[in-house]
């Protein structure tokens, strides 16, 4: 059983290499605004999360996921579904 805390911790690990400015990562850190991720980086990150949990995160779901916390919620929901 995977819980949200585990998911959140693993997402932080996955983001770390994509965080060259070493920003402090938190629930409300945003991908576009704070981390300044471009769409290619986002795509790589999504692919790595999909592989990590063997889930599907459709493209049309992404606009609603602005912060790390929101992604953790969404992944948790997909994993426990």
């Amino acid at each position, binding site marked *: 059983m995977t819980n949200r805390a585990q998911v959140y911790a693993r997402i932080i690990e996955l983001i770390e290499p994509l965080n060259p400015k070493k920003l402090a990562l938190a629930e409300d850190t945003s991908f576009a605004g704070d981390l300044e991720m471009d769409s290619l980086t986002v795509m790589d990150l999504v692919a790595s999360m*999909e592989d990590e949990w063997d889930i599907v995160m459709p*493209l049309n779901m992404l606009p609603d996921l602005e912060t790390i916390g929101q992604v953790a919620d969404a992944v948790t929901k997909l994993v426990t579904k």
Partner: protein
Amino acid sequence: MSDLFSKFDPLINERADLLATGVRDPFAIVMQEVKSPTVAVIDGRETILLGTYNYMGMTFDPDVIAAGETALRKFGAGTTGSRVLNGTYQGHKECEDALKDFYGMSHAMVFSTGYQANLGMVSTLAGKGDFIILDADSHASIYDGCYLGNADIVRFKHNSAEDLEKRLRRLPPEVGKLVILEGVYSMLGDIAPLKELVAIAKAQGAMVLVDEAHGMGFFGEHGRGVYEAAGVADDVDFVVGTFSKSVGTVGGFCVSNHPKFEILRLVCRPYTFTASLPPAVVACAATSIRKLMHAGAKRERLWDMSRTLHSGLIARGFRLATDSCESAIVSVLMPDQETTVRMWQAMLELGVYVNMSRPPATPAGVFLLRCSLCAEHSAAQLETVLERFVMAGAAVGLFAEAA
């Protein structure tokens, strides 16, 4: 002043900075005269066209022009109506018949552009609860079709059979699935491994749509596209294409053998809610398509010219997007935006027009000078082009940077 246009400020500023370096705007070229499929007048200068999609050189074909002229006189300048109301003329039917014959398929639907064909097919075929699985490098019209529809969208890594299979396997077996592929990818000029990709899609129970915009006329025994050359015609459910490239006019289409295909005319909004193509255009298209069925000599010339340009550029030290010549698009990899624009302008001033491509149209943030060949290019023109590439490359210091 801040208003709805403020979100465009970063792009406006980027362009202003670029133009301030003294280069001209690569997206504001005007063709003052067009003398043939391969020569136009730009800035008063006769220029070799090496950046059009006029692969088969049909734009000035005498039979095509004659058909267009006759239709213009007989049927008028426009239809002033939708395909499903007053906008289907004899010519639209004849054009769809030509497509059915060309592709050997039982149904054909002509749209007003290829963009609308993708917009319509993609948004209509996959609905709520269905999944679209598309190559990450898909054309903008395919992505826009996804956004217009209600399906869930999953991307797979460009041309990766392994990634496609992995993503398909994660989907519930019972949901509807549409896999969308292109024969030729127009930015890098690479072709898709359709044999592998289509086999995986079929094994996972998906329907398959292939966009053959840049393959029509010169891939496969009948010139149907990369899917024909790959031997997967029986497993492709829908082929989308355009008249704006090899056919040499404007318009888009989808062909299929699906028994219920005709219902799409009533449920596909980008087909229904727009005016049909003018009579002259469908007459030109039908004539051109029928001529493309017997264009063996032109096909050979096009491939000859493409290979000559590809190997010639490599021999002269340019870095190309594909190791060998895969299509009639030859893309030169450039280091950055400024060198790309300067080189593009130097080529233009030397009398050669190529396409400049930049992100987001290109994948992986690359800058390209994209060349596309025409069956009507002469060996002498290509020699001139290669010579001008070397001159322009030297002028902008391209080789110094690469060294």
